[in-house]
C-alpha cells in the first residue's frame, strides 16, 4: 500500500498539522511516511500545502507532482492541484470559499463542509481533524488507535487535553463527507 496525498489551503487552516498527524499515525502502525511542506515567506498569509506519503515500502521521492488524493481547502489550491490527482484518484474539498467547483470526471470527488460545521459546533480549532476524518472514512489507511497515538506524539503535551476534541472531530468528519457528481458542462 502506498498513498500519496496533497493537503492544501490557507496558512491558518491547520494544513501542515493535519498532515503531520496523519504521518505520525502512519509511523505508529510501522509504515514508512514522508511529510513535505511548501515553505518560506509565501506562506505568510498565503497558501500552504504539504505532501504526505504513507507506504508499506521505502519511500522514493518525497516530492511528487501526481497524487492519489488531494485535500483542498481554498480556491487557489483547487486551481493549483485539481489536475494533479491521478486518474481514478480522490479529491476532497471543503466548499467554504470555493468559487469554482472541480470539473474532472476521471476522479472521485467528495465535499466536506467541515468549516461550516466546525463553526457551528464551536470546534473551529479542530476543523482540520474533521477533514482528516472525512478522508479516513474513504481511505482508512491508518486506524483510530494509531491516530490516537499519532495525536499524542505530534501534539505538544500541553495540548493533550485537546485530544478528545480532535478525535470527536474525526468522527464528525466521517459523517460529513459527501460524494459530488460532476455535471456535464
Amino acid at each position, binding site marked *: 500500500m502506498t498513498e500519496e496525498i496533497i493537503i492544501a489551503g490557507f496558512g491558518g487552516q491547520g494544513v501542515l498539522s493535519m498532515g*503531520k498527524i496523519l504521518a505520525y499515525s502512519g*509511523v505508529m502502525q510501522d509504515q514508512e*511516511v514522508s*511529510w513535505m511542506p511548501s515553505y518560506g515567506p509565501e506562506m505568510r498569509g498565503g497558501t500552504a500545502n504539504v505532501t504526505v506519503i504513507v507506504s508499506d515500502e521505502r519511500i522514493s521521492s518525497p516530492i511528487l507532482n501526481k497524487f492519489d488524493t488531494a485535500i483542498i481547502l481554498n480556491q487557489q489550491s483547487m486551481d493549483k492541484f485539481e489536475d494533479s490527482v491521478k486518474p481514478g484518484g480522490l479529491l476532497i474539498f471543503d466548499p467554504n470559499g470555493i468559487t469554482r467547483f472541480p470539473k474532472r470526471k476521471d476522479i472521485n470527488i467528495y465535499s466536506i463542509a467541515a468549516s461550516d460545521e466546525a463553526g457551528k459546533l464551536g470546534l473551529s480549532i479542530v476543523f482540520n481533524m474533521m477533514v482528516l476524518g472525512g478522508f479516513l472514512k474513504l481511505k482508512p489507511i491508518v486506524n483510530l488507535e494509531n491516530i490516537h497515538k499519532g495525536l499524542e506524539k505530534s501534539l505538544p503535551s500541553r495540548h493533550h487535553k485537546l485530544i478528545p476534541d480532535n478525535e470527536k472531530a474525526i468522527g464528525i468528519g466521517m459523517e460529513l463527507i459527501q460524494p459530488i457528481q460532476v455535471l456535464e458542462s
Partner: protein
Amino acid sequence: MGELRLMKGNEAIAEAAIRAGCDGYFGYPITPQSEVMEYLMAEKPYESTGMVVLQAESEVASINMLYGGAGTGKIVMTSSSSPGISLMQEGISYLAGTQLPALIVNIVRGGPGLGTIQPSQADYNQAVKGGGHGDYHMIVYAPASVQEMADFVATGFKAAFKYRTPVMILSDGAIGQMMEKVYLSDPVPRRTEEEIISQCPWATTGRPPTRDHNIITSLDLDPAGQERLNLVLQEKYRKIEENEVMYEEIECEDAEYIFTAFGLSARICQKAIELAREKGINVGLFRPITLFPFPKKEIRELGRKVKGIMVVEMNAGQMIEDVRLSVDSDIPIEHYGRFGGIIPTPDEIVNVLENKIIGD
C-alpha cells in the same frame, strides 16, 4: 536501535548533535535551516548536557566562533544555507589550514545571489572543489533522508576528529524541511575536560607545565613551511580518499543505464527508476554519499558495465565533472538539471534518459 521519531531533517540534525555529545553550536538564522537553531534553543541542551548554543551576529561571526571553538578540542558545529555559507568561505579555509575538526551544515537553496529559498544543489562545487582560497578539501556528506541527516552528524564529528578536518553536510531545503521517520541513537555524554585534554593534545586547553604551548595557526611566512603544511594536507586527503568513500547502489545489478545523483535528486531518481522499469528500461542508481571523497573507483567500474550514465542534479552540471573525470569507458555521460528551486520530476527524468542517452 534508538528512539523512533517523526522529524524534520533540520530538527534531526539538531537532536542528533545533542545526542552525539556536541559541545557547541554557533549559527545565524537563514531559511531553510533556521529550525536547527530553533530546535536547540527550545531543547535547551545547555541545561541538560551543557552544550553551548549561541546565536551569532552573522555567518562570519558563526564560522569564526566555530573556528575558535574547534581550537579548544571541543565538538562544535554550525549550520546555514547558501548565501550564509558563502560568507563562511574565509573561515572554512582557516579551519582547513589549521586542521581543526568542525561540522558545517549547508541546507542549500537556489542561487546565485539571494535567489530563492527553495531547494537546490548548486553549491556542489563550492563544497567539493573549495569555495575558499587555497588547496583544501572538506569531507562532504550528502544525506538523502532525514535518517541520514541525523546519522551523518555523528559520522561527521567522528571523521572530523579522525582527520582533524572540517566536515560538511551538504543537504538542501527539501530534506531540511521534510519529516520522515528517524531512529535516533542513544545519547552519548559530552567528553570530560580530561578526555578532551588527552584526546586532543593539540588543543588550546591552557598550557600545563608539562607541555609546550599549543599554537593554532595557518600562517607560515616561510614558504617552505607553508609547503610542508600543504603536503601534510594533501597526504591527509589521499588517506581520506582511500578510507572514507561512501556510496549506495540501487538496482544496479541488472542495469543497462545508470542515474548518478546525490541527496534529494537521488530520491527522485529512485521514483524515476520505478517509472522507467515499468516501461522496461533497466536503469539503476549510483548515489555518491560522500562527495569528497568522490567514489571514483566505484563509478569507473560501473561505467565499464553500462551503456550510459545520466547525472541528475538540481544545478547546471557540477558533479558531472567528477563523474566524467572518473569514468574511463567510452559511454555517453549526460546531465539533466533543473535550477533555482525547481525540482525535476521523475517522469521528466525518464524522458530525458530516453532521449539523451538511450536515443543516442
